[in-house]
């Protein structure tokens, strides 16, 4: 590598300035699907962090041996293998959550963030920065998932992590949960609100 890599920016940029969800608009599909409650959002976030970090390290370790004409296939096989392992682990140790996440763990394979990071970063960098990049992007993704999950569960079900937070007296006074919040379209609108707040605070991201 000719350029000196700034480890700090590799790790921290994806949190905000280069966030995979709100800036690069990748992985929106799963954001819509798993954020009706906070708990599956957290588990999904952690699963993506794990898969992304390990996939980045593995690809980075074997990057010099991969024949260029089949590199996408190699990346896919590595990701698919890791995702199946995560799925099996969840089924064994977090059965209830794996039931809620069901097919979406499998769909991590098709999450654009993964292929994007493998192709753009891990193929050309050493394992350690690749690991940081994977964890950073995973956390960037998880942050958005948790923010969206927080608002959707709070307003849609009146709970957080399954615990009642909206007091019973509110319901007696006529407050009702917003059923629209747990439907998929509201995830898009919440993500849009997050993007709006994020852009208004980061002048350099605003387009002309």
């Amino acid at each position: 590598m000719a350029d000196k890599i700034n480890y700090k920016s590799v790790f921290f940029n994806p949190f905000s300035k280069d966030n995979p969800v709100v800036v690069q608009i990748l992985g929106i599909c799963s954001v819509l699907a798993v954020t009706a409650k906070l708990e599956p959002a957290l588990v999904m976030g952690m699963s993506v962090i794990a898969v992304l970090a390990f996939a980045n390290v593995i690809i980075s370790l074997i990057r010099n041996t991969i024949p260029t004409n089949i590199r996408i296939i190699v990346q896919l096989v590595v990701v698919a293998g890791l995702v199946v392992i995560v799925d099996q682990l969840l089924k064994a140790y977090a059965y209830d959550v794996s039931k809620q996440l069901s097919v979406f763990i499998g769909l991590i394979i098709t999450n654009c963030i993964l292929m994007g990071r493998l192709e753009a970063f891990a193929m050309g960098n050493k394992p350690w920065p690749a690991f940081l990049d994977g964890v950073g992007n995973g956390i960037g993704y998880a942050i958005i998932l948790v923010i969206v999950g927080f608002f959707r569960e709070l307003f849609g079900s009146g709970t957080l992590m399954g615990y009642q937070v909206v007091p019973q007296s509110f319901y007696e006074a006529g407050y009702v949960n917003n059923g629209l919040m747990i439907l998929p379209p509201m995830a898009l609108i919440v993500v849009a609100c997050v993007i709006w707040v994020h852009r208004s605070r980061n002048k350099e991201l605003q387009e002309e």
Partner: protein
Amino acid sequence: MNKQSNIYTIVYIIVMVAAVGTALAFTAMSLRPKQVDNANADKMKQILASVRITPTPGEVTTDFEKYITAQFIVNEAGEKVGDNAFGVDVAAESKIKDAADRKLPVYECRIAENDVKYIIPVYGAGLWGPIWGYVSFDSDGSTIYGAYFAHQGETPGLGAEIEKAAFSDQFVGKQVFKGGAFYPIEVVKAGQKPADESDYVDGISGGTITSKGVGSMLDNCLTPYKAFLQTLSEK
């Protein structure tokens, strides 16, 4: 070594697939017993939910054995033909057209001394995928004591509402025998009544197809138990 040659590529992909395959096979094999335990514990939890018992987390099997004092398989004539109700694949059985060929599992649940409930599993189709549940009857064989429904992928907020207590609690106290005739509970649009005199519950607005699915699931899965429930009521 030429990394772009065909030989290299083919050998590379074979080695990689073999390595990944071995790793996955190893993971699946070593986690299998734990996964089966989890799936069984989940099923036990659902069965107990139909008699409104929430087992202590981590002690599901103990609680299940405490409450479920007997389990058996009956046939359409109401005769006992086996005893491993837990091992019956209700999904497959519910698809057998001729009810006489079906194995019908029943769980006998003793929630208190002299208070026995009978739990019957049901399985059917919703809008997007399978729906299933457990219905428990009082020892008179006609009054529904409780019901539990679950689904695989019904629309959140609409069809998925069948798993909420607000829906399943409607079944409590309904009668399946009316003047000697058998009527599995109907699920109708709120405000409407079924054509015959069967007991009914309100379906879910916006979840019409799922609600209808629950209705036909009860029809398909409860009707074969008619003779069995009848013998209970004559006891």
